[in-house]
């Protein structure tokens, strides 16, 4: 039961990253690829009907984490208090920027909301990457299973790390670039003409950097958390994840060269999903590793809610998530195809 819920939560958060990843990615590259007002409207139009549905995966994933692993929720959310609160502020600024831009015709405000939209997307990607790296690296848990991380200490991993050290900084930058690539491929898929060409060209330039950083992240993870390698040695099937990472990246490169927009985007989806599943596999069955001497790892078994809670949860969750997938697919289908040339914002 614990293993099942571990992968349910991991899957929900992976779907969140793959879906909201492309609209955050559009935000990251927005100011660089969308040069004219027409381009910007098209970019906004491409994510307009779907971005907040994508964000729901974070809320639903968080809620599922809350009831299935109460100890993990309590410990990690209070321990990452400051960065999480900043993430909340960024999510607010970003959501409002999208909405407000559609409601105004004043050029000054439009440029303000363009800037806040892009900046908050950039910072969100960095924060999410750093957050994931923090969980992989481990936190200084106390004997009561709680911790409180300062924002930074001496940039080193070890017994007393901060939120930002050399390892989590790599995580932040990698997330920023990987989501930027993801966003570019989505834009190329959803638009035509100049915007499409610029997005494709930029994706081609970005791809090698993402590849290099991804490769660098593997030894970095082994240094920051040697145990992750041991997990891979024990479970042969886990090696599928790094294999899928490489397959995904290779698909992106080949598809970009041949002009296959759909395959390039799907390759990027595969890459992101495999990265996250790979990270989850490196942790399993730990959900929050301890780096200090006082505490011990929070494992699935220790964090898991009561058995009846989980049985009940599984029943409604399966039903609810089926509905959710149907809604999501319907919306994507209704708004399928390229954004029309004269996209009129997406005002309403």
């Amino acid at each position, binding site marked *: 039961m614990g293993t099942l819920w571990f992968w349910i939560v991991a899957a929900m958060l992976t779907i969140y990253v793959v879906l909201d990843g492309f609209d955050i990615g559009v935000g990251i590259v927005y100011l660089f690829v969308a040069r004219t007002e027409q381009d910007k409207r098209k970019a906004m139009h491409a994510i307009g009907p779907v971005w907040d549905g994508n964000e729901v995966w974070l809320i639903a994933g968080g809620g599922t984490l809350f009831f299935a692993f109460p100890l993990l929720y309590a410990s990690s959310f209070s321990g990452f208090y400051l960065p*999480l609160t900043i993430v909340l502020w960024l999510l607010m600024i970003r959501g409002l920027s999208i909405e407000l831009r559609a409601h105004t015709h004043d050029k000054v405000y439009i440029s303000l909301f363009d800037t806040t939209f892009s900046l908050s997307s950039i910072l969100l990607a960095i924060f999410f990457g750093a957050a994931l790296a923090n969980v992989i690296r481990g936190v200084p848990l106390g004997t009561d299973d709680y911790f409180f991380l300062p924002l930074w200490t001496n940039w080193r991993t070890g017994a007393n790390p901060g939120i930002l050290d050399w390892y989590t900084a790599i995580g932040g930058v990698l997330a920023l670039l990987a989501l930027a690539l993801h966003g570019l491929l989505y834009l190329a898929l959803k638009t035509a003409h100049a915007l499409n060409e610029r997005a494709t060209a930029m994706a081609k330039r970005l791809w090698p950097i993402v590849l290099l950083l991804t490769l660098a992240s593997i030894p970095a993870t082994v240094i920051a958390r040697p145990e992750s390698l041991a997990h891979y040695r024990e479970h042969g099937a886990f090696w599928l994840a790094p294999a899928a990472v490489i397959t995904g990246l290779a698909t992106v490169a080949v598809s970009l060269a041949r002009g296959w927009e759909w395959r390039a985007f799907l390759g990027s989806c595969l890459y992101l999903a495999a990265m996250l599943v790979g990270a989850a596999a490196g942790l399993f069955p730990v959900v929050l590793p301890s780096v200090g001497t006082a505490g011990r790892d929070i494992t699935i078994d220790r964090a898991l809610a009561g058995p009846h809670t989980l049985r009940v949860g599984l029943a409604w969750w399966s039903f609810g998530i089926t509905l959710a997938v149907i809604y999501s697919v319907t919306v994507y289908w209704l708004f399928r195809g390229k954004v029309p040339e004269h996209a009129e914002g997406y005002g309403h």
Partner: protein
Amino acid sequence: MDALTLHRIHFAFTITYHYLFPQLTMGLALLIVVMKTVALRTTDDEKREFYDVAARFWARIFAVNFVLGVVTGIPMEFQFGTNWSEFSRRTGGVIGQPLAMEGVFSFFLESAFLGLLLFGERRISRALHWFAAFMVFVGSWISGFFIIVTDAWMQHPVAYKLLPHGIYEVTSFWGLLMNPWAWIQYAHNMSGAVITGAFVVAATGALYLLQGRFEPYGRIYVKIGVIAGVASCIAQIFPTGDMHGKYMAKHQPAAVAGMEGLFHSTPGAPIVLMGQPDVENQTIDNPLVVNKVLSFLIYGTTAAEVKGLDQFPKEDWPGALPLLFYSYHIMAGLGTYFVALMAVAAFLLYRGTLYSTRWILWPLLLSFPLPYIANTAGWMTAELGRQPWLVYGLLRTSEGYSKHVGPGTSLFTLLGFLGMYSVLSILWIVMVYTAIQKGPRAPAVDAGHDGHTLTTA
């Protein structure tokens, strides 16, 4: 200030601010469905176009409030973990369920159908567009239900058992969802949301009639607002408010004693219509009372004894007694005023003179902030009355907060939210004001569907 107080203010402030938006969207969603239904059922093209425009105007205002509700709602879920970690660790297996269900059952539905409602009018059939409006209504009301289930478990815990390490787990799924407290509170709360929606719609209509702009729309908004208003204002007091009060008196007698300012147990207890509680001397200053009414309201007989605060140990008293007393009295006082105002307006509507009677249009316009105050006061009554418990009778508020998050950190993020929400308030006022100034207008063209660049904003 100590950490506990700051964490409490942190949650109280962010949730009070958040609830300004859902109370309108939940009420408005219902009224939008009403307008879309009229448009769908009529065979007269002109009338249909008129009601579609009327509904589209409110869908725009709905969207603004919905987005603000979403962005201020996300911090609420996070705060269970960030600021109330010990509470989350112990009760996450119970209250995490309805919170996750809200995400899975409601948020996906709302975001999908709101997209269709706002962007899909020219892409989907008329019936499907009506359905989108209906599903947005259903989604927002389901969302409200799961939040009330969560709160109801804290108010009146049911269907749980205690596991080792102080952890609670659900013993019955239906027991949790069928908590009587939840259903009574849900009815009371949703009727309160319709009141807010009705007052805002009626006030906008009254504004247009007073200004002599968009008059056909002004008339229809006043009409829909007053009809929905009179029904919901009455339902708010009877049966929902009445049931809520009686159920509370049974299960949270200390809260009721605090609300009513009843320091000493009294047979044939009087109701205090106005007054100022003096906690130190345990009296009400300047009281305006009606004898025996409280006993009658709670027990249906004028002789019954109502338990006063002296029946409970002081550490079990609701902490902020004067605030609890005032919240309850403000809520009840405004509720009474709402019935009176809406009844007069409904009478004039029936007589056919409402639209030209300026002395009633002005109060209809000026009263729109009052339901926000009444709903906020109602929630403060419920949550202050629950104190000093986080989960009534099981877990004290002082045991539930994040011990590792210091007061300085909590103060910092509280100040951040204060700043952020001040900016949001300005944006919100400007956006809604602009939308109301522009008024309901035909026609909207779906964004770029056919290559024309007509304005849609």
